[in-house]
C-alpha cells in the first residue's frame, strides 16, 4: 500500500500518437501527476489534448512511449485500471432515447461499487430530472449527467475532457466546487480545458500543449512567472523609437512600442525617467505583469508554421 501510494497516479513518458493518416497528434509527451493532485492540460483546439487523454484513459495504444495509470498500462491492463478510474469524454456518449435514470442505471451495471443513482445525480444537481430523456436535456445538463456517470464508481483517478464546455457560469462554478471536493477526498483529477481561468482556479499544476508537445508546465504561478511582463505605449510624432534607451528591448510597430521584460519595475523606471528627462509623452501607457493568458496567447500564436492536419477529434 505504501509502495503504491508513492507511484504517481498518472505517468506518461515520451508518449506519442500518430493517426493512420500519418498525422502526429501527440509528439513525445512526458508528465507525472501525483495522487490527489488536479492537473490541467491546456491548449488550443487541435493541440493534442484529447488525443493525449485518450491514451491515458486506455482507449488507444500509443504509437510510442509509455503510459501508466495507478502503476498499470491503461491499454493492456485495462481490467486492472478501469474499475479505479472515471472518464468523461469531450462530448456525447448516451443514447438520446434513454432517460436520465435509465442511463445511470446502465452505467451502474458496468461500474464496480457504483454509488446509488440518487447520490450521483444529487452531486451534479440533476435531482428531479430522472425521468427526462437525454435528448430533452440541455447541453449543460448532459455534461453534468456525464460527470455523474464518471463519478459513479468513486474513482481514484478522474479524467475530464473539457468538463465545463457548454455550461453557464453558475454550472461552471458548481463543477469547480465538485472537483475541489473530490480532491479533498484524495481523488486525482486530470482535466483538459481551454478556459484559462478554469486552469488557474482549479489546477495544482498545468501544462500547455501546442502542436502535440508540452511547451510549458508547472504550477500556475511558475508558468506565469516564466513569461515576460509587457509595457506598451505610443511615441509622439517626431520621436523615433531609436531614441529609446538601448537597455530596453523594444519592438516597434509604427509608433506603437512593445517592451517585453522579466524586470518590469526596473525597466519601467528606466522608461519613465527617460521620458521625463526628454519631455516625451507616452500615449496609452500600459504596463502589465505576465498572466497565464499572456503565456497561452503567446504559445497559441505560434501556429502559422503548422501544416494543416486533422483537427483534434472533436469540435463539430
Amino acid at each position: 500500500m505504501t509502495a503504491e501510494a508513492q507511484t504517481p497516479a498518472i505517468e506518461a513518458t515520451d508518449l506519442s500518437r500518430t493517426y493512420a493518416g500519418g498525422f502526429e497528434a501527440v509528439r513525445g509527451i512526458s508528465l507525472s501527476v501525483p495522487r490527489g493532485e488536479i492537473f490541467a492540460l491546456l491548449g488550443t483546439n487541435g493541440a493534442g489534448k484529447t488525443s493525449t487523454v485518450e491514451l491515458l484513459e486506455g482507449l488507444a495504444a500509443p504509437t510510442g512511449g509509455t503510459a501508466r495509470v495507478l502503476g498499470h498500462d491503461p491499454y493492456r491492463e485495462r481490467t486492472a485500471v478501469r474499475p479505479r478510474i472515471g472518464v468523461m469524454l469531450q462530448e456525447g456518449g448516451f443514447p438520446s432515447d434513454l432517460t436520465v435514470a435509465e442511463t445511470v442505471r446502465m452505467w451502474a451495471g458496468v461500474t464496480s461499487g457504483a454509488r446509488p443513482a440518487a447520490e450521483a445525480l444529487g452531486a451534479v444537481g440533476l435531482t428531479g430530472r430522472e425521468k427526462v430523456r437525454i435528448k430533452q436535456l440541455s447541453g449543460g445538463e448532459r455534461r453534468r449527467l456525464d460527470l455523474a456517470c464518471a463519478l459513479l464508481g468513486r474513482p481514484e483517478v478522474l479524467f475530464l475532457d473539457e468538463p465545463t464546455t457548454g455550461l453557464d457560469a453558475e454550472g461552471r462554478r458548481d463543477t469547480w466546487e465538485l472537483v475541489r471536493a473530490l480532491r479533498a477526498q484524495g481523488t486525482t483529477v486530470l482535466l483538459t480545458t481551454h478556459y484559462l481561468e478554469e486552469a488557474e482556479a482549479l489546477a495544482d499544476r498545468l501544462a500547455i500543449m501546442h502542436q502535440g508537445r508540452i511547451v510549458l508546465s508547472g504550477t500556475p504561478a511558475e508558468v506565469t512567472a516564466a513569461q515576460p511582463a509587457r509595457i506598451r505605449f505610443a511615441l509622439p510624432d517626431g520621436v523615433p523609437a531609436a531614441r529609446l534607451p538601448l537597455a530596453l528591448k523594444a519592438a516597434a510597430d509604427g509608433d506603437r512600442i512593445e517592451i517585453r521584460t522579466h524586470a518590469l519595475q526596473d525597466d519601467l523606471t528606466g522608461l519613465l525617467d527617460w521620458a521625463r528627462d526628454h519631455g516625451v509623452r507616452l500615449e496609452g501607457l500600459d504596463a502589465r505583469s505576465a498572466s497565464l493568458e499572456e503565456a497561452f496567447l503567446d504559445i497559441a500564436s505560434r501556429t502559422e508554421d503548422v501544416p494543416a492536419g486533422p483537427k483534434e477529434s472533436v469540435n463539430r
Partner: protein
Amino acid sequence: MSATTATTGRPTTTLSRLAALGRAELTLLGRNRNNLFIAAAMPLLMIFLLRSSLKGIDEATLGISLGAATLIGGTGMVLLLVVYMSLTSSLVARREELVLKRLRTGEATDAEILAGAALPATAIALAQAAILTVGGFTILGSDAPARPDLLVLGLAGAIVLLAGLAAVTTTFTRTVESAGLTTLPLFLVSSFGSGLFVPRDALPGLAADLAQLLPLSGVMEFVRAGWLGTAHSGSLLAAALNTVAWGVLTGWAVRRWFRWEPRR
C-alpha cells in the same frame, strides 16, 4: 457533494454487465418504432408472403412439404431481419451517438459491449422461432421438429454469426438510414441462396453448389435438419465447417475493421 467514505463495493461481473447493457438496449428497442416494427412485425409478414409464394411451387419441386418449407424459410427470415438487420442499425446508431466509445471507457470489454447490444435481438429472434414452432403445429399442421437439438444448434450458430456479420456491416454503414441499403446484399443472397425463399434443391446444379458456400447456408442446413430430421448426405459436417469458417472470418473482420466511434 456529500462526503463519502470509499467503500469497496460490489464488483461487476460479465453477467451483470451484459444484463445492464442488454436491458438498456431493450428499452431503446422498445422506443424505436422502426426497429420495433422490423423486429416484431416484419418476420410474420415475410412468413405470410413466403407461404403464398411457395404455394406456386409443387411439392415435388420443393422436395419437402409446403408447411416445412415455410417453417424453415420463416426461421431464416426471422434471423436475418431481427438479428442481422435491426442489430446493424442499432449498432450504427450507438456508434454515431458516441455511446460505444463512452462504454469502452468503462469496465465492459469490447466483446461484452457488442454482445450486450445483441441481447434483445437474440431474445426476440428466439421468441419468434418458438412462436413459429408452435404456430407450425396449430396453423400449418406440420410435424414437430424431428431433431430439436439440431434446430437449437442451428439457431445458436445463426445468431452468433449474424451478430458478427451485423458488426462487420456497420464498418461500411455511415448512418442509420443507410443501414437499410447496406444490409440488403446479404439479405437477398441468403434469401435465394441459403434456402429461405427457395429450397436449395430447387436451384440448378452449379448454383446449388455455390450457394452451399454462403454464410448462412451452414446454419440453415442445421435448421432444416432440425425440422425434417433428414440431413443431406454428409452435409452436416460440411455445414458445420462452413459455419466455423464464416465465424472465424467474421470475428477476424470485426477485430480488424470495427469502428467504435464515428468517422470525422
